[in-house]
Structures are given as C-alpha cells and as structure tokens.
C-alpha cells in the first residue's frame, strides 16, 4: 500500500495540488498561482505548502503525479527549438504542402500556421539522395552518405538545436534513417537527433514527419523543465517517483516523458477525463459527458462505457499540425465565466467567444471590465453569491454586474433579468451544440449520458446544459474545481509501442503469421523492459495487443483487439472478422467480402500503480437538511417561459452527508464551485460525496 500520493496539475491561472493519504484517511486540496515562466517554481512551492498544511512529510509521498502544460505552451507561443531536417530528395516540402487543405472554407485572408510559422524552416530541410520502394521496402536508390555529411555540416553551421531524419517509406524499412542518424551522431555527438521511424513508425509521410518535427520542436525545453523539476524536488526532500500525464491519459516516467515529449501535448485536459472515468466507477454510472467550464473556455469530452475515447488519428492535430500519438478526445470551445455578451453590428445578441478572461475579468471584478459577462449574468440572477468567490477571498461588486447587464438589456429592449437569462441560454446553447457535434458525429446519443460537471463554472451550468441536450442527470464530483488533479491520482503508467506491418486477409501465409508473432514479441519485450525499468513489478504489468486495420483502399485504420495467445491462421481470421464488427460499430455497416489489411501493430503496456480511494462519507439520510443550510436567498429561474424569483436555500457542501436529498430550487456552495439545482430537479449525495442531480421522478441507477 502506498503511503501518500501527490497530484499537481498546472493550469493557466492556478496550480492545483492534492495530497491523499490512505493511512490517515485524509484528502487535502491546495491552490497556488501558476508561475508561467517556470512552472516548477509554483509546483515546488505548492508541494511544500500542502505537506505543511496536511502535516505529512514529503518523504512519505511515494508518487508525485503531474499534469503540465509546458509542452502545449511551447506550441501555442511558437517558441520551440530550431529544428534541422534531413529528408528524401524530391520531397523537401512535405511539411509545407501538408494535406493542401485550407483551415477555413470561406476566407482569403486566413493564416496557415504550417506555412507562416513552420516547425522546420525550408532552409533547414535538406534533401538527401536515397529512396526505398513500396510495398517491399527495398532500396532503389542507396543512401548517399556524402549528402548526409554535407547536410549535417550545414545544419551545424546554422546552429540548429535538434536534428530530425525523415525519409519516405521509413515505416517499411528504417535502414537509411538509422544510418543517417549514426552519421549525425558521429559528426555532431552532442546534438539531439530523432528519426521518424523511432518516434512514430507509421504509414503517411506528412503525419509521421509532422509528429517527428513536433517532438523535436518541444524536446529541449521539456527536458530542461523536467530535469529542473526533478532536481528541485530532490532538493526539498522528495523520495517519491515523478510521473507525468501524457495526452493518452496514461502516465510516463521521467525517462519516457523526456524521450518522446510529443506525447505530453495534451497532458492538461487528460486528467479531467480520468477523473470522470473514476467517478463513473465510484458511483456506477456507465456513460458520461465531461464538461469542464472555466473562465475562458469549456472542455467537452464524451466518455462511453467509462472508457476515454481517443481522437481518430486523422483528426489528431496540435495547433494545426498532425500529431500521431494517442490523445484523449476533448473538444475545447470559447465559452466560460468570462465570455462577453454584446449586440453585434447586425443586431444579433452574442455571447463569446470574446472573453474578458481573468483580467480585466467580468464587470463585477471591478478591474475595469465594462462588458457584461456570463459570470455577471449569474450574479444578476442570484445564482452566484458575492461571498462564494473563492470562499469570499475574491472581492467582487455585484452592483457592477447589474449596471453592465442593464446597458445590454436596454440595447435589446429587454428587462435586466431577461437579458441575463438570455446570456445563459446562448452560452448553454453553444455548449450543447458542441456536445452534439462530439457525440452524434461519433454515433452516440447524448440523451443516454450523464453530464460530469467539472471546473469552477461547470456545476453552475450543467443542469441547464443537460436540459438542452435532453440528458437526464448530472454528476458533480466532490471537488469540481480540481477534477483534473484528481484524475492524476488514478493514472497508471502506460506506453504505446508500434510497428508497421502490412498484411492482407487475401494472403495469410505461415511466413506472415510468424513475422507478426515476432513483431509482437519484440514490441511486448520493449514495453515490459521499460515498465520494469520504471520500477513496476511484473505482476502489475498488463499487455494489450492491437492490430490497426482497414479495408483495402480506405484512408483510415480502426483498432482491433487481438485474440489471446500466439497468432495462428484461425486467430488471423478472427482479427479480420473482428474488424468487420468494429467497422459496423463505428460506421453502421461493413463489407464482409472486401479484403482487410493490417497496417500497424500496436502494444500498449500498462504498469498499474496502487490506486487510492477518496474517503467515504457517513450516512445522513436527510431531506433538505436544515443544519447544512448557510442562508436562503432569492434566485431567478425561467419556468415554462415565465420568469420567477424563488427563495432558494444555499447548502454547504462540506455539511452534506451520504444519502442526503435536496429538492430544487437549491444551491450547493463550496470554496471552488457552486452547484445550481433548478426547480423540477433534485439531488442526492453518494457515499463518496458526489452530488447526483436528476430531473424529479427520475433517479440515477447506482449500486448504493
């Protein structure tokens, strides 16, 4: 049993820290301002403080679990490394031409980031004479080593930070890429160098090169950050293991995180998804849509069967560049507490994506913001109380919200309350559209899902949003404001190892089968070796084998899990048959008489980390418990088109016990969030303290 675990999630404004200790049954939450120039300063400070607050020595912490935006920020700021590239002659501009598709359909003035701010400038993309043939992978033009030597010299003179080797068809045969890298190492031993076949040995040149370039682009800064953090933690007496969240929702050891930092690009949002999955398990809810609403944006993710969905590889991009690493599927839209409401030049009532952010912030922040924001609308309607902004630590002036909303209402010829309700209706509708896009497009019906409300503003909007998409229930976790950090607590080490192997169902031979068996053996060996190196006992290692298949001629692959044991002709046929089933699930039809191709073999190695449960609550079993009510105030609701002002009790979240029941209208307040339960809705508390909100007469099915 682990003694204690720390989770540290760095966001744009705050760094959230959780310390959980099973022995002492404690769960401590702490927030410090993020230090953007060097995230590790805030991280270290927060860790020292939380250990002090909880009275647990840092040396007792076995695991420090970290979600970081350090890689993401490099891509947003476009201040990564200067990358040099050796690439096959006659294909110098693969990264520049991309898939020759405009971002915007109706725009002449649009910017194409991959052309205006390329990951590798053209002067640093140097053509090398070499060529392999497909599909055999045989050499048709031998590698001209003089070209490589001359190019390395040129890149050395240009003082690039990293060199990448990206040759056509290297997914079939990496012999030229390996040899070129040897020459780079020989001529320039201290230089960092990656080949495309080590980063992501997968078919499709543009996507593979782009992933490799992105990896190189973020690598030096990420390594510097991680090394610095490791040193700092050791200095303050940490003895635990540092694990970093990857885009896939799995954690990586320090060694793996710095070897392929491109896997950290979506580290931030992945934690929140794991939290939703965890709550699904705790409270026995099968299908969730996670909605994490903050100040400027909302992250939306559909999670069927308690399994985080991965982005389809054709759609996996970071800042317009494709990245072929597994990424949890999260849609981010510009909708949050700071979204500004206004009337545009055509006379339309708009909310967002313009945002007042944290500075100047909504009008009520009294920092110079004049525009009414979503937060102001919530204040005007009595849904957010002055004393609830960070438990009253943030000083706000509700009068300014009313004034700003009045100005807007006048323009619209509405009452102030009508305008405020309109603001919420519009912003909730934006989110509802995004939920529909993320669910219907992928063949799921949002009405069968519960909403998982996270982020400071999530629980305030979730029930209205549920109403808009006809979802029947809302799950509000114990600490919605730090959901991403909680997700880190349940993350396991997880690595993907892949190999390109094309095998068609029309030609299954003994030789093909034994090659694939050997391939898998090699991949599994790699996965086990790495996990053991990270200190995982072999009984906690789980191996999953996947064949990525498609119909001949299709442009995208689907993942097919493999049958148990060594592959035989029967099990090969089983793979192809399973592909038809997966295709049916994904697209609603299949072609049983069309040949299926295996394109890529994938092994996912998981190293299980001892999990820790969040503390349980005692049973209260009370209806609208008076002793938990802080005060009662009027709150505005629209019921069947009529605006009503109803006395609404404010319950203190930390005074609620398991199986307590509250009838709407009600508001539950806590330091990091406010939950709104409108009339016609009711909430119960689970033994883990989760608020389960549902339309009256409909109960969520749970074990308890």
């Amino acid at each position, binding site marked *: 049993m682990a003694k204690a675990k720390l989770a540290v999630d760095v966001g744009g404004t705050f760094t959230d820290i959780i310390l959980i200790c099973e022995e002492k049954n404690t769960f401590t939450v702490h927030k410090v301002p993020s230090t953007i120039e060097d995230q590790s300063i805030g991280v270290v400070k927060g860790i020292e403080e939380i250990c002090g607050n909880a009275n647990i020595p840092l040396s007792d912490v076995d695991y420090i679990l970290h979600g970081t935006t350090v890689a993401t920020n490099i891509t947003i700021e476009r201040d990564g490394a200067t990358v040099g590239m050796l690439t096959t002659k*006659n*294909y*110098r*501009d*693969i990264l*520049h*031409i*991309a*898939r*020759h*598709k*405009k971002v*915007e*359909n*109706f*725009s*002449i*003035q*649009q*910017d*194409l980031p991959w*052309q*205006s701010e390329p990951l590798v*400038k*053209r*002067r640093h993309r140097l053509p090398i004479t070499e060529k392999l*043939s*497909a*599909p055999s992978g045989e050499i048709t033009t031998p590698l001209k080593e003089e070209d490589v030597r001359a190019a390395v010299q040129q890149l050395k003179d240009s003082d690039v930070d990293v060199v990448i080797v990206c040759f*056509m*068809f290297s997914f079939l045969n990496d012999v030229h890429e390996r040899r070129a890298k040897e020459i780079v190492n020989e001529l320039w031993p201290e230089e960092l160098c990656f080949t495309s076949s080590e980063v992501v040995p997968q*078919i*499709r*040149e*543009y*996507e593979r090169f782009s992933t490799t370039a992105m990896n190189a682009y973020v690598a030096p800064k990420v390594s510097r950050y991680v090394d610095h953090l490791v040193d700092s933690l050791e200095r303050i007496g940490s003895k635990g293991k540092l694990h970093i969240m990857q885009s896939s929702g799995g954690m990586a050891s320090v060694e793996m995180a710095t070897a392929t930092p491109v896997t950290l690009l979506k580290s931030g949002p992945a934690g929140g998804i794991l939290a939703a999955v965890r709550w699904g398990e705790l409270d026995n809810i099968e299908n969730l849509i996670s909605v994490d609403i903050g100040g400027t944006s909302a992250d939306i993710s559909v999670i069927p069967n308690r399994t985080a969905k991965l982005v389809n590889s*054709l759609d996996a991009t970071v800042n317009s560049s494709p990245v072929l690493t597994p990424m949890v599927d999260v849609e981010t839209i510009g909708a949050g507490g700071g979204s500004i409401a206004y009337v*545009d*030049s*055509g*006379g*339309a009532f*708009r909310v967002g994506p*313009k945002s007042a952010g944290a500075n100047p912030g909504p009008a009520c922040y009294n920092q110079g913001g004049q525009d009414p924001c979503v937060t102001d609308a919530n204040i005007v309607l009595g849904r957010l109380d002055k004393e609830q902004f960070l438990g009253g630590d943030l000083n706000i002036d509700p009068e300014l919200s009313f004034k700003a909303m009045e100005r807007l209402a006048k323009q619209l010829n509405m009452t102030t309350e009508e305008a405020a309700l309109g603001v919420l209706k519009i912003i909730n509708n934006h989110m509802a559209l995004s939920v529909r*896009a993320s669910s*219907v*497009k*992928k*063949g799921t019906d949002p009405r069968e899902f519960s909403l998982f409300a996270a982020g400071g503003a999530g629980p305030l909007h979730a029930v209205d949003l549920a109403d808009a998409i006809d979802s029947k229930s809302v799950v509000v976790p114990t600490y919605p404001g730090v959901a991403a950090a909680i997700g880190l607590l349940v993350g396991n080490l997880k690595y993907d190892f892949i190999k390109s192997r*094309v095998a068609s169902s029309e030609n299954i031979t003994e030789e093909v089968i034994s090659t694939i068996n050997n391939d898998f053996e090699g991949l599994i060996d790699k996965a086990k070796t790495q996990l053991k190196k990270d200190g995982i006992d072999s009984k906690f290692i789980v191996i999953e084998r996947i064949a990525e298949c498609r119909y*001949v*001629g*299709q*442009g*995208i692959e689907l993942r097919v899990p493999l049958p148990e044991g060594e592959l035989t002709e029967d099990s090969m046929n089983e793979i192809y048959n399973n592909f038809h089933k997966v295709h049916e699930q*994904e*697209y*609603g*039809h299949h*072609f049983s008489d069309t040949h299926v191709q295996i394109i890529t073999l994938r092994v996912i190695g998981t190293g299980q980390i001892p999990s820790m449960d969040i503390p349980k609550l005692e049973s209260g079993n009370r209806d609208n418990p008076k002793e938990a009510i802080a005060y009662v105030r009027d709150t505005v609701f629209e019921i069947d088109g009529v605006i009503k002002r109803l006395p609404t009790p404010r319950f203190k979240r930390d005074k609620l016990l398991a199986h307590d029941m509250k009838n709407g209208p009600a508001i539950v307040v806590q330091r990091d969030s406010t939950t709104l339960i409108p009339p016609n809705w009711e909430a119960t508390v689970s033994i883990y303290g989760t608020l389960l909100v549902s339309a009256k007469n409909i109960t969520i099915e749970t074990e308890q």
Partner: protein
Amino acid sequence: MAHVIERMAYSSLIRESEDLGAGVFNKFGHTIAEADSTPMQLGCLPGYIQGFQSVLGVNIHPGDIIWNNDPYAGASHSPDIYAEGLIMNGIKFYEKGVRNETVAEIVRQNVRTPREVLGDLEAQVAGCRLGVKRFVELMDKYGKDTVLQASEELMDYSERVMRQAIAKVPDGAYEAESWLDDDGRNLGKRLRVHVKINIEGDELEVDVSGSSDQTPTAFNASYSGALCVSVYSVLRSIFLDTAVHEEFIPPNHGTFRPITVTARKGCIFNPIKPAATFSRANQVNTVADLIIKALAPVLPEQTCAGSSANIQFASYAGLDENSDYWVYIEVNEGSYGGRPGKDGMDAMDFSSWNTRNNPIEDLDMHKPMVCDRYELREDTGGAGRWRGGLGIVRKNRMLTDGFMTMEGDKHTVRPWGYKGGLPGNSASLIKNPDTNPEHLSSKLNGYTLIAGESIMVLVPSSGGYGDPLDRPAEQVYEDVLDDYVSEETALRDYGVIIKNRKLDLEASIENRKKLREKRGKVELYTE
C-alpha cells in the same frame, strides 16, 4: 445532418474529404441553415429544391425523399460515379416514408458499385430524416410560428450584414477578363471569361454574359449548381471572410438576397440543354479570380492578387499484373495571390475547392504508380510587397500500361500581379520530363501512357501584391535562404543584392532607390 452522412457514408470520398452538403430549407427552397463542409457543395442546394419543385409542383408530402441530380435543374455537374450519368429530377426515392424499390433497382443496374452507391444514398436519407426530426422537435418545443419567424429573422440578419458590407463599396461597374486555354478539342482557341460587377447601394450583380459561347465538349458550367455556387462562395470569402469577421454569420439564403448572378443563355456558364457539363472547375474558378480582380481596387484589404484560378484534375488508369482494372484520381492544387499583409498561400486549392491530397506512401503501396517528386515550384511566385503563393510540381510514373484523363487549364495565362506586384507563372503538363520532354495540352481524355512513362504536373504560382521594391530587403533575404526566391530573382525583381547567401544591405538600398526612380509609377495590374 452532415455528421450522420459522414459517419454512415460508404464512399471514402464523402467520409474523409467531407465532400458533401446538407441544409435545412423553407418551402421556397431558401436555405435556413447549412453544414460547414465542402464549399463547392454548399450554396447549390436551393437550386436542387427549386429544380424538383418544377417537376413535382405541390405533390410533396412528409416522408418523401426526392432525387435530383439534373445539372439543368440545380445540380452542380453530371454525376461522376459513372461517365454517362443517370440523370433524374423530381423522382421520389422514398414516398411518404416508403422506399421506391423500382428506383433502387434502376440505381442498382446503372452503377458500377451498387452497394456503395445505395449505401451512400441511405446515409443521405438518414441525414434528411435526422434534419426533419430535429426541426420538428424545435417546432414542438417553441411552436411552429416562433421557429419559422426565427428562421426568417436569421435570414434577415445575414442579409443585413451582407448589405452593410456591400454598401461600403462605391456604386459603379467593375470589370475584369481572362482566358481559358481551350475546350479540349479546338486546341489553341482560347475562350474568353468576362465578369462585370454592378454595385448599386447595398446590392450587387455579377454578370458573366460577356464570356464565351458554350462549347461542343463537356467543358461547360451549369448556371445554378456551378456558377452561382462559385460566385456566392467567393463573395462570402471577400465580404464575410471567416478569418477576419469576429462573429459567425449564419450562412443562409439571406446572405445571397442582395446578390444577382446573370449569365446569358447559351454562354459557357448557362449552356442550353443538352450540352454536357462535366468539367466546370476551371471556368468557375476563373470567375472567382476575376471577381477578386474587379473588386481589388475598391476593396484592397479584402482581396488578393491573381491566384491559380484552376484545378488540375487528373485521373490515371490501367490494368495491373493480374489484369485488374485500377484507377487513381488526383486533384492537383493551385495557389493564392499575395495578400494585404501576408504572402499568398502556397500549394492550395483555389476558392470553392478545398480537397485533401492522398499520402504518397499510401499511393505507392497500393497502385501501380510511383510518385517520384512532390515539391514547391521554387522561384516562381510573383514578386511583390507580399509574394504570390507557390504552386507545386508533381511527377507520377506509370508501372503498367494505361491512360490518363486531365481536366486542367491555365497553361496560357499567368496569375496577375496587383499594384506593382509581378505576375506569377502558368501551369504546364510535361510527359517524360527527364528523358524526352513533351508538352501536353491542359485537357486530355484517355491519353495513352506506357509502363515507365512519367507525367509531370506543374500548377500555377500566383501573382504578387504591391511593389516588390517595398518588400524589406531582409525579408527578400529570408526568401533566398529558403530557396523560395533565387539570388537572380532577388536582384532582378526586388533589386536586392545577395551574393553567396550574403545580403549586401547598403548596396541593395542604393540599387532599389535607383530602380524606383528609373521605373516611375507602377501599374495597377500586371499580367
């Protein structure tokens, strides 16, 4: 609706290239809302509806799913699934919710891949049904009158925004013209494309009547499905550029109310039935480019210099070693002219085209063809304060005997430069460029190629925007370091002196001053 169609479609073209359109319309065929998919599919949908209404009249009922692919009644072009084309308008695929099995059987017997085609049709049916269901749900929730009133208001809103944008342009007539290489049969005989834009207050007319007569080949564009779509698409890009406009303007009928599109009956943009209308891309892209050209002097911040205005649509076919028929289709992109504040976009489909290229690694793995080269055309973008975008060069080599078809253009026209910017470079098509180069014309039909022969496609590089002498010498130097511009061009077109990759800034300043005096005032357009 589009999500459902995309997910359920059998054709990879629909699924992966989002080559589809979907929308909700009122009883007049006016667009209330449409999906943001391929622009060449959008905006043409109202024409389809008016087309089948002309056949069915009021004989339309809930649950009907109506077929229309007649290019003379709204469709964009005759179907590309099979060459001859099965054309039907106003035929009910479903009548009051029941599938018409006769129609299904007609389709089954007339297409090469019946399962895929019927699958795609059913995907469209599912999309339509979802659209109807959601719209009825809206009416149940808010009441029919409210919903219809709201959709009118949405159209009025988009109309207001479009009118405001048009009203900013001074009243007047604005003209521009260009040429198409030929109709594919009468080689050397160029076809005129003429655009006249009349602006009066907040209304705009695009008149292409001055263009060439219709052709005897399939090189004609249908009025509603091809011409109007292209005109709407480029006007939206100019007046409501989504990268510039902070607000999302709902694309609906209102946007087009202030716009009239006129084409003389019998011209290449309004052919008289039964002229064939298979190839339309180059004609309508030329119109789009000319609209930009005509408006550039009055809307300098919303336009760009001359673009590729083309599509080089290639299809290669043959029999492989097992005597199986193979076919490979490739849309070769173009490029965009220099823009106010930005260089032109390189290697990009122009205007209402926005396809995705195929990975070379995928092509070489599965087709008996090898792509030997795919790169930018170095040193070809029109010089300017903002450089014209570069086209691409692509070389494909046949591994079997076979033939190719090419729907291309712009071999004889260079994209125009604007306000001192220089023109770009035209397209060409070269057979066996390394061994025995032979220039081919821009349109080929079943052109024979034997195993080992190569085809090199060069697409146009675009025109420059503004005076090249105004481009900072340092920026020209950056271009030379990247081989976008050669040292010779830097000197000739920009007056910047770079030798052995070293910039001589002082000498450049001096030289540019002299050139400026010698040259005098710059032209508005260069071609």
